[in-house]
């Protein structure tokens, strides 16, 4: 039983032989979508072709893929011609692709897209590569068919807009096998006289994509790009876009449009000049008027009246101040004067004359009083003395006796004042003015009222 077992290799070879010998699998037409695309460094392409339900491994060797007009990408629907075989080492069957083209679009489109992409990648379309179209060209080169509407449109438009601009038509074939080289040659010819031409218009009228195709050729594109003279492209109609349009310095939608873009309108320019003149004059006039008004306004401002008013005001201030100075000074002096006068008056009322007079009066009065009182005192004393002397005189005992009176004394020396103090026979002494008498009582009589005597 053991000998009945096959090796893997033997089985694989068997299957491979079966497939390789199947005439249907030798020529397969397949439609599918690319995935897992890989462009190997050695040139072969490995990819998977799939539809919604199935997938198949595929390979396209470099000998086949060098003829491709497009670059395969994942997700791309493709139409494939190839054969199916088995790759022994992995035991997988796969599709060996001979030819491949995109499904749905034509090959021309593919070529257009791919050239566009290539040139773009190279940077030929970049804005900074574009030359500026001169605003006022003296000489325009027109590269187009010498017959047909395009050249007529261009030339008449330029003549109309700028009668002074020179035009040179460089006739070319715009379609057919000679077209590309004819266009390239014309561009190069013009560039040989690059000082002559200020701008080139390259283009043709409308047509099918095949008729316009020359303007999608790489050689034409590169010639335009290499031109040192600015190029305006004008190919077909507005909807047609060619590689030449992308690479040109300016794209015009139509030949007429190209002519309009190439040269300015004389009328517009004249208008522009006179507009400039108008603006210039306006600015100047406005400036002068503005300044005049400003100057006038400044000259009429209060500021120019100010100094005069200031002087007037200061005059008044000074007058007032001077008045005040005089008044206040006079007031001060007068105040002092008044105060002085008042004091002087007060001083004069204090004149000591009154006081002196009063004092003198007083002194005089006192002196008089002194004299008077002294005199009074003296007089009183004198009078008193006189009184006393008079009284003394009155009581002078010697004077009484001188009138005949005598004083009787009893024997005891006592003065006898009554008859009752004596008895008959008593011895008595009688003192007279000038001596004594000794006597004896002989009779005693009582005196009556009539002064008579009565014997007792």
């Amino acid at each position: 039983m053991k000998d009945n077992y096959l090796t893997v290799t033997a089985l694989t070879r068997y299957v491979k032989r079966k497939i390789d010998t199947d005439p249907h699998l030798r020529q397969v037409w397949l439609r599918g979508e690319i995935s897992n695309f890989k462009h190997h460094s050695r040139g072969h392409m490995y990819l998977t072709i799939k539809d919604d339900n199935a997938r198949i491994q595929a390979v396209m060797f470099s000998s086949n893929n060098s003829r491709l007009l497009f670059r395969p990408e994942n997700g791309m629907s493709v139409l494939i011609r190839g054969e199916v075989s088995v790759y022994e080492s992995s035991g997988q069957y796969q599709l060996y692709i001979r030819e491949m083209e995109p499904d749905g679009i034509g090959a021309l489109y593919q070529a257009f897209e791919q050239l566009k992409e290539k040139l773009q990648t190279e940077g030929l379309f970049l804005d900074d590569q574009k030359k500026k179209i001169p605003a006022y060209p003296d000489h325009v080169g027109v590269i187009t068919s010498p017959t047909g509407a395009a050249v007529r449109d261009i030339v008449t438009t330029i003549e109309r807009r700028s009668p002074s601009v020179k035009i040179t038509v460089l006739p070319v074939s715009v379609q057919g096998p000679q077209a590309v080289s004819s266009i390239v040659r014309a561009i190069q010819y013009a560039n040989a006289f690059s000082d002559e031409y200020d701008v080139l218009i390259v283009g043709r009228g409308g047509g099918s994509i095949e008729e316009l195709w020359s303007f999608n050729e790489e050689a034409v594109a590169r010639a335009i790009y290499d031109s040192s003279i600015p190029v305006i492209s004008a190919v077909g109609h507005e909807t047609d876009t060619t590689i030449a349009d992308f690479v040109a310095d300016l794209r015009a939608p139509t030949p007429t449009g190209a002519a309009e873009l190439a040269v300015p309108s004389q009328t517009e320019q004249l208008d522009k000049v006179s507009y400039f003149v108008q603006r210039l004059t306006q600015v100047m006039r406005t400036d002068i008027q503005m300044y005049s008004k400003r100057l006038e306004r400044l000259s009429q401002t209060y500021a120019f009246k100010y100094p005069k008013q200031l002087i007037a005001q200061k005059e008044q201030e000074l007058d007032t101040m001077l008045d005040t100075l005089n008044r206040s000074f006079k007031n001060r002096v007068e105040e002092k004067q008044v105060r002085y006068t008042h004091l002087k008056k007060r001083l004069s009322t204090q004149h000591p004359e009154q006081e002196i007079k009063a004092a003198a009066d007083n002194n005089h009065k006192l002196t008089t009083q002194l004299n008077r009182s002294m005199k009074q005192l003296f007089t009183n004393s004198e009078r008193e003395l006189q009184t006393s002397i008079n009284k003394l005189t009155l009581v002078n005992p010697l004077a009484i006796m001188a009138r005949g009176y005598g004083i009787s004394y009893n024997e005891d020396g006592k003065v006898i004042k009554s008859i009752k103090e004596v008895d008959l026979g008593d011895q008595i002494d009688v003192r007279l003015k000038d001596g004594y008498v000794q006597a004896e009582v002989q009779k005693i009589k009582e005196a009556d009222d009539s002064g008579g005597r009565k014997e007792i």
Partner: protein
Amino acid sequence: MAEEKKYDELTFEQAMEKLENIVTMLEEGDVPLEKAIEYYHDGMKLSKLCNEKLTNVQEKMVHILNEQGELEPFDIEEEK
């Protein structure tokens, strides 16, 4: 005599008083005559003394007035 000296030392007023006393005593009359006479005698002396004193004072007064008189006529009244 002792009494006389004593009199000299009396002031005018004292002398006057003594004199007045004597006069009063004499006027009352109870004085024995001899005494009265004595009193009287004293009175006379006293009155003499007083008189002398008065005279003396008067002289002084005159003197003072005279002294005064030299400068006298400062009399504010008279100036009027």
